[in-house]
């Protein structure tokens, strides 16, 4: 077990960081509860076809983990530190993965002894690695391990790593990963025997893309050094807007997958290559026709536009999604810097959740399970909101109790 847990915070706390983390955690509770409910608007659901508010939460959380990761790593690497930070983070990260497996289970059960065969065990291991283990805590743990060789390196090295990770993920998606995540026929699934198994949140190779959010956080930490809060907020707004624009720009390639009704075989042709578009399809189109629907807006249905890599798709963790969500997280963080570090604003709610996100996450996970016992998926809006309010308030009370005792479980 390697999750760091300490009774006394050892690093100076940055208000905007705690508040932003607290906001991400609180928002995660809301979308986690509402995500499966029939009455929930698409804005609060993961749709995997476009960017919704729900899709912004996990990137924001991993982004803020990146800021804290870089900050605490540098602190622990200093001459005064007595522990080896590499060993420490390796231990912590594996602990986080183990905790995640315990919290979410392994999605497999052997009902009796005769079912335990080498074939089934191998299948279990591959299913686990491909898809089943990749919940948010395990992703954070694995990404921390992936970035361990980079976390102490220069800004330039990490910036290049950001681009390289994205590039590598894209290449893998071209090769097999797009079909791999969606459980469609591909070479790797055939090799592993996991054909038909769908993954979520990017699956195993999604770690490359998730690492970009954490790297972005580390870069923002570098930027923050030596800048006043006001200047930092200004820079972050600019950078956030540009990164979002790049993400949106990438997503415009999705328009090349619009089905031309006049060609009978068009849909099948497009489905053959969901990652690499046929640029010749842009010919003859007005530039306005090449603009994708803005984020938060539902795109045309699959009967009009073939589902493709260029959509802001959280299931694949496409590059358009990564860039737009990174920009969104940076922009939002700029607001927190402005409100908290410049104007001194803070909410107790965010403070409580922000200082104890791991404990809050575990507690809320258990409470949501209990509350959903009496809030079925097709509940009407008032009952759904009552269930949400109850789960939220009880989570807050428990985490507030831990806060009053200065008990913090740290990532």
């Amino acid at each position: 077990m390697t999750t760091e847990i300490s009774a006394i915070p050892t690093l100076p706390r940055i208000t905007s960081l705690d508040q932003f983390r607290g906001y991400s955690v609180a928002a995660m509770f809301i979308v986690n509860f509402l995500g499966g409910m029939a009455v929930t608007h698409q804005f609060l659901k993961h749709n995997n076809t476009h960017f919704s508010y729900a899709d912004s939460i996990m990137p924001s959380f991993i982004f803020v983990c990146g800021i804290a990761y870089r900050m605490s790593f540098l602190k622990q690497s200093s001459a005064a530190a007595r522990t080896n930070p590499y060993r420490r983070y390796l231990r912590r990260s594996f602990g986080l993965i183990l905790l995640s497996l315990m919290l979410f289970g392994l999605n497999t059960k052997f009902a009796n002894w005769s079912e335990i065969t080498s074939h089934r065990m191998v299948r279990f291991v591959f299913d686990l690695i491909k898809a089943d283990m990749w919940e948010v805590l395990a992703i954070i743990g694995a990404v921390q391990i992936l970035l361990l060789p980079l976390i102490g390196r220069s800004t330039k090295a990490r910036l290049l790593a950001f681009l390289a990770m994205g590039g590598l993920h894209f290449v893998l998606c071209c090769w097999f990963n797009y079909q791999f995540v969606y459980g469609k026929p591909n070479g790797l699934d055939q090799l592993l025997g996991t054909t038909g198994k769908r993954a979520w949140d990017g699956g195993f190779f999604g770690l490359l893309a998730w690492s970009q959010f954490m790297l972005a956080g580390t870069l923002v930490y570098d930027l923050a050094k030596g800048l006043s809060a006001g200047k930092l907020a200004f820079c972050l707004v600019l950078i956030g807007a540009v990164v979002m624009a790049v993400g949106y720009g990438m997503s415009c390639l999705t328009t090349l997958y619009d089905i031309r009704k006049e060609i009978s075989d068009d849909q099948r042709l497009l489905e053959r290559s969901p990652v690499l578009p046929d640029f010749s399809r842009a010919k003859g189109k007005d530039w306005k026709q090449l603009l994708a629907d803005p984020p938060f807006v539902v795109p045309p249905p699959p009967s009009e536009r073939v589902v493709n890599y260029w959509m802001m798709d959280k299931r694949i963790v496409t590059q358009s999604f990564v860039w737009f969500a990174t920009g969104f997280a940076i922009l939002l963080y700029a607001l927190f810097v402005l409100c908290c570090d410049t104007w001194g604003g803070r909410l107790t709610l965010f403070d409580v959740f922000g200082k104890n996100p791991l404990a809050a996450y575990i507690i809320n996970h258990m409470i949501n399970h209990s509350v959903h016992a009496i809030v079925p998926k097709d509940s009407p809006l008032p009952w759904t909101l009552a269930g949400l309010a109850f789960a939220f308030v009880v989570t807050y009370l428990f985490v507030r109790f831990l806060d009053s005792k200065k008990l913090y479980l740290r990532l």
Partner: protein
Amino acid sequence: MNVNLPSEVSAPGSAVGKASRITSLDQFRGYTVLGMLLVNYFGGYAVCPQILKHTHDYCSYADTIMPQFLFAVGFALRLTFGRRMQTDGSAAAWMRAVRRLIGLVLVAIVVYNVGPRAANWEQLKDLGPWGALYEPLKRGWFQTLMHIAVTSLWILPVVHTSQSIRIYWMLGSAIAHILLSYWFNFLWVNSPPNGIDGGPLGFLTWTVPAIVGTIACDVFVKTTDNAAKIPFGKVFVASLGLMLLGYVMSCGTRFYDVPEDQVEALRSEKLALDPVVPSLERIRGKLERDGLSGLLAEAPFVKPPEKEYRKWNYWMMSQRAGSLSYLTFSAGFSLLVFMVFYIACDLCHLQLPIFRTFGTNALIAYILHSMVSSTVQPFFPKDSPYWYAYTGLALFFFMNWLFIRQLEKQNIFLRV
């Protein structure tokens, strides 16, 4: 009223961490937590020895675990509540205790996830509030943590009073349990959905080990500085006396032996029709068949005949029914085990690190163990051979230890 409150040490389970801890109580609690891990994880395995299983018709080793928790809770409650009353005043101590125990009720509701009550909204509406909550209230939520919370709330009014008042409270609770069991409770708890550990009214008899724990606190704590004054002989006799009393009560179960000529006719029945007060006909028949010697029940830890040959009744030592014989016997057993720990730890200064690790973080260990179990058990089917089942058990223990030890290293202790 003679109120002699122990106050020189901090209670395990209290948030007042600066005072010294009672090593024996931590070790005793740690042993109990480990025993719980063992029986809760392993009880369902085909290769598990009978003595480690809960079968609800006699007192096995597994059945000694929960009473020991209640014993430790009573011990600690007496200690902390007493200290709080002296330092913060009566009202503040009360408010704090009630708030904490209601918190524990909430923890229980969260930890004992009862699963969806209805597949959809229409079904939920048809069930109505009572229909939706009846099963969790009777069974799902009423497990160890809820029993501890409710029992603690029940004994709170007397926990700071003299021993005689506490003993009267215990006797009153026991009598109330018998009367309620006679009225409806025994059949209700043993009918689907079966209650767990005595069901919602189980607190009446869980009061027995809890009150015995408060008395043990008086005996063992107030003379910490002078161990020679602890009346070990009297404690030993008291524990044996309680166990004997429990055993004698359990002899009532022999009235429910099924005559050989009726075995086939009654085979499908599990519960006796008169489970609390045996009918005259039943008493007369038994005495005529077997005489007085036929009234001796099997010793504790010895499995009795199956339900075909003896119908389930209130007098058998049953954890499910929370029967008085069971909790009287196990309260005495808890006292004896605690005394052994006291001698070993506080007098001979022996202790096991693993007991300390689990004993100082019992609540987290309890919450954690079901999560670890649900991760490990799917890979170790119930019909696994010895080597594989024991490997799973070792892995289960190791994972629990790994987490709890890490918390201990970081000085994180969650106490209610």
